[in-house]
């Protein structure tokens, strides 16, 4: 199992899983976040629970789920709760340590756009799906991890076309007291950007082996600063890859 054969999905899943060390409750969609959380459960976060946006807590699926509402997530789960309870008591109630989000655009404060591409919301160039629960995941999770396959100037922008899910800095400017730290980790094919909370920009914190600071800067739309203790990300270990490939996604549904 040589490191060279590691796919992008495997790499991102393994790196994200390490960031979940010690966490208890994760709000995650299907795909890389589920793979990361499932791997973390087997390695660095044995008590980890994945809460799905559909209301499933403590799933024990017979097959790897294809959607957050896959019937296999429900059968055998520990609890299935109504949506008002999920969003009201669990998410807004403050029970989520880490929420996973994706987005079409992210800026240096970790604000996210998943609504439209183009200047005019009313007549967008591209209509995207919108918030779903992203606005709430951002507002209420203790912290948010963003996993982006693509690290390029289209996604990492100086200015968002539209802010769907704001971080705490924008909330404060709007007179609203933020409850969480916002985006604290952005995990991409190039490395990891990180910030800790209010008033902090996303800085380059770690690089994948072989990637340079210049590579990342060239693909980031704002003037990216580098963390003082910039590190190189350890390659996925044989143990991590074995668990991921044999236990988490043996049919390679997501490990494309």
């Amino acid at each position, binding site marked *: 199992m040589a490191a060279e054969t590691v796919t992008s999905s495997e790499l991102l899943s393994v790196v994200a899983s390490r960031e979940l060390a010690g966490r208890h409750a994760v709000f995650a969609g*299907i*795909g890389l976040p589920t793979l990361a959380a499932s791997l973390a459960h087997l390695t660095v976060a044995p008590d980890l629970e994945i809460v799905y*946006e*559909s*209301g*499933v807590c403590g799933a024990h699926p017979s097959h790897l789920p*294809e*959607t*957050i*509402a*896959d*019937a296999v997530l*429900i*059968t*055998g789960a520990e609890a*299935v709760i*109504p*949506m*008002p309870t999920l*969003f*009201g008591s669990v*998410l*807004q109630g403050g029970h989520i340590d880490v929420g996973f989000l994706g987005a079409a655009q992210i800026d240096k404060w970790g*604000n996210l756009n998943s*609504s439209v591409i183009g200047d005019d*919301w*009313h*007549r*967008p*160039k*591209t*209509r*995207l*799906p*919108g*918030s*779903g*629960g*992203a*606005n*709430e995941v951002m*507002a*209420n999770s203790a912290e948010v991890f963003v996993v982006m396959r693509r690290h390029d100037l289209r996604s990492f922008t100086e200015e968002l076309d*539209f*802010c*769907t*899910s*704001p*971080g705490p*800095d*924008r*909330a*404060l*400017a*709007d*007179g*609203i*007291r*933020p*409850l969480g730290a916002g985006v604290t980790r952005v995990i991409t094919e190039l490395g990891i950007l990180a910030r800790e909370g209010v008033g902090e920009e996303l800085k380059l914190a770690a690089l994948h082996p072989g990637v340079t600071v210049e590579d990342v800067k060239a693909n980031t739309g704002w003037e990216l600063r580098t963390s003082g203790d910039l590190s190189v990300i350890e390659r996925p270990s044989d143990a991590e890859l074995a668990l991921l490939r044999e236990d988490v996604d043996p049919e390679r549904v997501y490990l494309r």
Partner: protein
Amino acid sequence: MAVESATGTSDAPRTTDRTRASDKTMTMREAVAAHVRDGDTVSLEGFTHLIPTAAGHEIIRQGRRDLTVIRMTADIVVDQMLAAGCVSRLVSSFVGNSSAGSLGELRRRVEHADPEPLAFEEYSHYGMICRYMAGAQRLPFYPLRSYGGSDLPDVNPALRKVTSPYPGPDGEPEEIYVVPPVNPDVTIVHAQRADRSGNTQVWGLTGVQAEAVYAARKAVVVVEEVVEDEVVRSDPNRTLIPAHAVDAVVVCPRGAHPSFAQGYYDRDNAFYRAWSGISKDKERLTAWLDEWVHGTGDHAEYVAKLGEEFWDGLAVGEAMSLPVNYGRRL
């Protein structure tokens, strides 16, 4: 003394002319004819599970126009209703084909006003949930910790702020966003089973269906099967929607396809993936509607047209809940 009905002072939308004991079963055709009118505000709920697709198709068949559709996840059934020209306004928090791709008609309407503009009110999921809760609870607004710093309030003037009358944790006044209630003219949901009077039982993902029903002036429940009263009454906690909130019960097996009904049939993931392609091409989309909606007299024909082999592919096995004891006085 003559009994006169009190007029009260309420101008609230609620009617309480629903009866509990009567048989409310009717066909989908009858239910849509009776309860969905041109210009109505229609809520169709079901979060990825139990999506009332067959009801949407019947609305298309009956040619309803100028509807305001309220649905958290505006997905395939909404794209179909848009393409059929039923919808002039959409209120939603997610306009995508699940994680499987795009809604072609919705994007043409929003991005190009093709063939005509679509009025769109954008919320987040919890914003929609809170609107239903405010509607169900007859509240003037519902507070939520969303939207702070978002651009959504700039394009949706319904998102407003209230100052709490209690000091915040720092002793200073605290502001919070609120959403207004929604009271649909009719809410349509799909469920596994009900009795004839409308006591409706749902398991698996239960979404926001109960709140959407309570928020509505009229409610239509579409079910996989109508069961005897004894079945429902053996487990009253399973009744998510009591009969007093229901106006019509429609028996429509497999009416949630391509979504699923826990314990009845599985999700048709292939159709979700196919929809992005179908809907991207207006001609293909029109042909699909002609064949599968206008070309079928009702959902039973749609089901038959898909064929037994197809349904075998979505069949599920048994995983029965263990019974609990409600107790009996000795």
